[in-house]
C-alpha cells in the first residue's frame, strides 16, 4: 500500500508541474467568461447555454488530461529510462501499475474539483442557488468514468508501442462510445448474421460511459438520480476498472522493461 501511495504521489506531482491542466483550466474560464458577457435580449438570467458550454469544456478537458496522462505513464518511464531504477527497488509491477492508476485517477479527481467548483460558481452567479447534491452526483459519476478511461489507457499503453497511437485510439474509442455506444444494439438488429452477433457482443462488452454523462440532468435542473442507481453505476465503473487493470497487470507481468 505504501508503495502504491508513493508512486501515486509522484504521478500527481507530475501532473501539477506540467502545464496541461493550467492551460485547459484558463482556456475554459476565458471562454465561459466571454460567453457569459454576451447580451441576449438584456436578460441576465439565461444560464443553461452557459452551463452546457462550461460542462462541455470540462468534459473535453478532463478527457484530454485523463487520456494523455495515463497513456504516457509507462511508455514515458520506458523511454526516459526511469523505469529501471524504479523497478530495481522492492516494488512489484502490480504495485507500480496500481500506483500509476491511482495517481492518474486522483489527479483527474483534483482537476475535476477545480473545474466543477468553477462551474458551480458560474451557474450560481445567475441561478442564485446551489444544487450541491446534484453537482456531487454529476462530479462523482464523471470521476468514476475517468477511472475507467484511465484504466483503459494504461492497458493500451502496455499493448501499443507509442503513446501517441494509444492516445489516438483511446480518443476514438471513447468518443465512439459516448456518441453511439447506447445505440449499437439498434444498428445490430437489421444486420445479417454473423455481423449482428459481433456488433451485439461489442455492445454488451464495451463499457457504457453514457451512464456517467449526466450533463443534461444538471443543465436542465432535473431532480437527483436515485441513490440506488447511482450506487449501481459506481459498481459498474469499479468492475470495468478492475477488468482493465487486471488485463494491464497480465500484459505487464512478463514484459521485458530494458
Amino acid at each position, binding site marked *: 500500500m*505504501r*508503495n502504491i*501511495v*508513493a508512486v501515486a*504521489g*509522484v504521478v500527481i*506531482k*507530475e501532473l501539477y*508541474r*506540467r502545464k496541461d491542466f493550467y492551460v485547459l483550466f484558463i482556456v475554459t474560464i476565458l471562454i465561459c467568461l466571454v460567453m457569459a458577457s454576451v447580451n441576449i435580449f438584456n436578460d441576465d438570467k439565461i444560464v443553461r447555454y452557459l452551463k452546457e458550454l462550461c460542462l462541455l469544456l470540462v468534459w473535453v478537458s478532463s478527457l484530454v488530461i485523463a487520456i494523455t496522462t495515463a497513456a504516457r505513464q509507462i511508455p514515458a518511464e520506458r523511454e*526516459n*529510462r*526511469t523505469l*529501471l*531504477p524504479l*523497478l*530495481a*527497488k*522492492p*516494488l*512489484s509491477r502490480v*504495485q507500480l501499475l496500481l500506483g500509476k492508476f491511482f495517481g492518474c485517477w486522483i489527479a483527474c479527481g483534483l482537476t475535476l474539483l477545480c473545474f466543477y467548483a468553477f462551474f458551480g460558481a458560474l451557474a450560481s452567479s445567475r441561478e442564485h442557488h446551489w444544487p450541491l447534491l446534484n453537482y456531487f452526483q454529476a462530479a462523482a459519476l464523471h470521476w468514476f468514468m475517468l477511472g475507467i478511461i484511465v484504466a483503459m489507457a494504461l492497458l493500451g499503453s502496455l499493448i501499443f508501442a507509442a503513446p501517441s497511437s494509444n492516445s489516438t485510439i483511446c480518443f476514438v474509442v471513447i468518443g465512439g462510445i459516448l456518441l453511439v455506444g447506447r445505440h449499437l444494439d439498434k444498428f445490430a438488429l437489421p444486420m445479417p448474421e454473423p455481423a449482428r452477433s459481433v456488433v451485439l457482443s461489442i455492445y454488451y462488452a464495451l463499457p457504457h460511459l453514457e451512464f456517467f454523462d449526466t450533463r443534461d440532468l444538471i443543465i436542465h435542473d432535473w431532480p437527483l438520480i436515485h441513490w440506488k442507481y447511482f450506487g449501481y453505476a459506481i459498481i459498474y465503473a469499479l468492475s470495468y476498472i478492475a477488468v482493465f487493470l487486471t488485463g494491464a497487470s497480465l500484459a505487464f507481468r*512478463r514484459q*521485458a*522493461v*530494458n
Partner: protein
Amino acid sequence: MAPILKTEDLRVEYRSREMRRATKVALRGLNLEVNAGEVFGFLGPNGAGKTTTMNVLLGFVQPSGGSASLFGIDVRQPIARQRIGYLPELTYYYKFLTAEELLRFYATIFGLSRSETDLRIDRLMKLVELEHARKRPIRTYSKGMQQRVGLAQALINNPDLLILDEPTSGLDPLGRMKVREIIQRLKHEGKTVFFSSHELGEVETVCDRVAIINQGELKVVGRVDEIKKPEHANLEQAFLEIIGFQPEVVA
C-alpha cells in the same frame, strides 16, 4: 557462508519475431556466485551478456531457464531487492522532481521512516556534493550532477549489495576517482559490490574477484592474480586472451 548473489544454469533466449531469424541466446547456462563483502568485477566485450545478467538479477527480464537469487530469495520476488542498490549505466530520473524529492520517494519504497530518510538524505547529499542543488528540479542538472544523483539513490537504503552497471562510464578522471573511493569505502564497511566495467585498470585495482563472460558463456572466474598469467603484463592482456582475441601481426 551462503553466497548473496547466485545464478544456477541461467539461460536467457530472445525469440525473434521474424520466422527466418534464429533465436538469439544471450546467456548460456551461467553459474555465478558472489560472496558477502567482496568487490566483484563482471567483465566481457560488448554484447557478451553482462547487462542481460544484471537485468535478470534486477527482475527486468524473465530468464528462459535456470534460476537466480539475491540473499537466498528468488529474484522474481520484489523483496529480493530490499537490500540492494542499483546504479544503471545511463542515469535518468524524474526531471520534474528535485533530488531531495526523488530520494524521499525511493526511501518510501524501501520503507524508511521519515526521520531516518531525512538523516540519510543529508548524508548522501554531502557525499555526492549536491547539497547546494538539492531543491532544484533534476532537469536543471548537468550530466555529472545527474550521475551523482544516481549514486545517491543507489545508496539511499544503505544496501548490503550494490549493483553498478559501468559506473565510471562517461565520467571525467575526478569523477572516476570519486567512484573508486566510494567502492573502497563500501568494501571497508563490509558491503558487497557487483559491477560491470570496461575500465580494466580500475577493475584490477579495486576488485577481489572477477568473472569474464563472452557470447553468453562464463569463461573464467577467480581472483585477478589467479587469472593473470606470468606472461600477461596486465589484466587487459589476460582478458583479450581469454575472450580469444588474436592481435594482428604487423609485418
